[in-house]
């Protein structure tokens, strides 16, 4: 623009740097805390440079767990991983099939089916939490992966995303496949799926993060320690009686809980942004 660029650029760099530091600081403190012993943290004078206890804290958290949540964190991470992947894959499977039906077939109840699915967008699980709990309990699904995953799949985001994408695929492709004698299955497998790969990947990234970070639902339906997810595990490590909280283990666990989803965002940034922008439209 017409103004001197130099001054404005310095201001921009400064603002952004401050922003980045402020955003990173809470996580930096958690990483620091995971490198000290309990005593250093408790006395309230934790140094601002890393200590030397990381080699003790991480193996202990991963393989034997804290005093309050006795399960090893590695087990919680496995649970979180199964839940996150289950939600992502489950949602992709059911929604790509239903979007295929709604977009590429004409049948009497098409509009109705679409609206029945669409309405679920409006109500997050938090508002129907106890009745859902009761149904899952009646089905005998408490403390199971199925119980963790299924209720969180029941939503329209994926269906809408695939529907939107299918709409942009030119009709000529279907006409061409039909001339080639392809039926619905062939068209789905050989044309639709390959074209949808990026959309599938973007949805997977978003749903993985969503699933990994779930809190209220796993809190309600897991009672066994062996079914705990890592996000729940941390909460249990921090007790109201300060003396019992092993902050170094809790913060080590917090770091471990952040690593997988943050890595996904950083290394699959393009897919992540695509998924985020398109699921919200």
């Amino acid at each position: 623009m017409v103004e001197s660029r130099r001054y404005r650029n310095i201001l921009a760099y400064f603002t952004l740097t401050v922003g980045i530091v402020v955003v990173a600081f809470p996580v930096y403190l958690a990483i620091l805390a995971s490198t000290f012993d309990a005593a250093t943290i408790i006395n309230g004078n934790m140094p601002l440079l890393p200590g030397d206890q990381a080699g003790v804290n991480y193996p202990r958290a991963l393989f034997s767990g804290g005093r309050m949540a006795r399960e090893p964190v590695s087990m919680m991470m496995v649970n979180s991983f199964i839940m996150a992947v289950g939600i992502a894959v489950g949602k992709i499977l059911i929604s790509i099939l239903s979007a295929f039906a709604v977009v590429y077939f004409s049948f009497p109840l098409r509009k109705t089916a679409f609206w029945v699915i669409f309405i679920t967008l409006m109500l997050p699980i938090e508002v129907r939490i106890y009745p859902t709990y009761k149904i899952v309990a009646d089905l005998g699904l408490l403390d199971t992966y199925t119980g963790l995953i299924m209720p969180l799949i029941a939503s329209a985001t994926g269906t809408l995303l695939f529907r939107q994408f299918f709409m942009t695929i030119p009709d000529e492709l279907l006409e061409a496949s039909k001339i080639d004698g392809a039926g619905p299955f062939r068209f789905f497998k050989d044309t639709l799926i390959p074209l949808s790969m990026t959309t599938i990947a973007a949805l997977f990234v978003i749903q993985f993060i969503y699933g990994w970070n779930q809190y209220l639902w796993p809190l309600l339906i897991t009672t066994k320690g062996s079914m705990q997810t890592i996000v729940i595990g941390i909460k249990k490590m921090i007790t109201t009686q300060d003396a019992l909280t092993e902050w170094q283990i809790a913060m080590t666990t917090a770091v471990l809980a952040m690593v997988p989803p943050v890595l996904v965002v950083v290394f699959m940034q393009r897919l992540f942004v695509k998924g985020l922008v398109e699921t919200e439209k």
Partner: protein
Amino acid sequence: MEKRALFSSKILPYALLLPQLVITIIFFYLPASQAIWQSFLLEDAFGLSSEFVGFENYRHLFGQPEYYKAMVTTVVFSTSVAILSLSCALLLATQADKQLRGGEGYKTLLIWPYAVAPAIAGVLWIFMFHPTLGTLARPIKAMGIDWNPMLNGKHAMTLLVLSATWKQISYNFLFFLAGLQAIPKSVIEAAAIDGASPLRRFWTIIFPLLSPTTFFLIVVNIVYVFFDTFGIIDAVTGGGPAGQTTTLVYKVYADGRLGGDLGGSAAQSVILMIIVIALTAVQFRYIERKVQY
């Protein structure tokens, strides 16, 4: 908009829809309708029998001072988080939009907190501001403030607002940056040549053109604070001290679980459903209007 070319099959489309419909009915429609039905029932203390009491649960709910308190808390919480996170994100997005070298790097360094679970965000912030061991609690205490979010409701709310804002900035930043980059540079350049200062250009051109994004984000942020902050509240304050940080969603959870008041909890769920449907309707109406432009 519909496809011209279609398959015709009598059974196949239903078979394809079946998995989603079954899951949706069992885990969505059934519980949602049960919540509505239960809100008209009164269960005895052991859950053995229940009788139909009409709007009694609702009347009871609106007679509780705590319910109004939770409403006020929710409004204060969501307004503070929305204003704070939107303005921080807008500031950062306008700066990142200035075609800086390393622009993509800045983006990466600002969006990663999206991946942090709300409950974990809460844990990070309570650790930082813990009254006895928090690194940032010490300077606050040195200033002569008796900082204690475990006992002081205002301090607890401040901590909640900060942690919820921290987590939401990345999301708002991403959408603001996309919105800014969609504004044609020629419009802004024309204003610059006419002698409009950067600040004036922002308020008279950029900000109005950004309003669809801003509006969308306001609705998303309110929904976020309503529901996704459950984990933050449970980790940081547990609704306390003395219920001063209990929001509407937290109250549904607390009344149903700790109080065992299922009818009252269900009535609260129904009211929340109405609020969310209203918010979504506002959003859709707005989007439709945008399409017509």
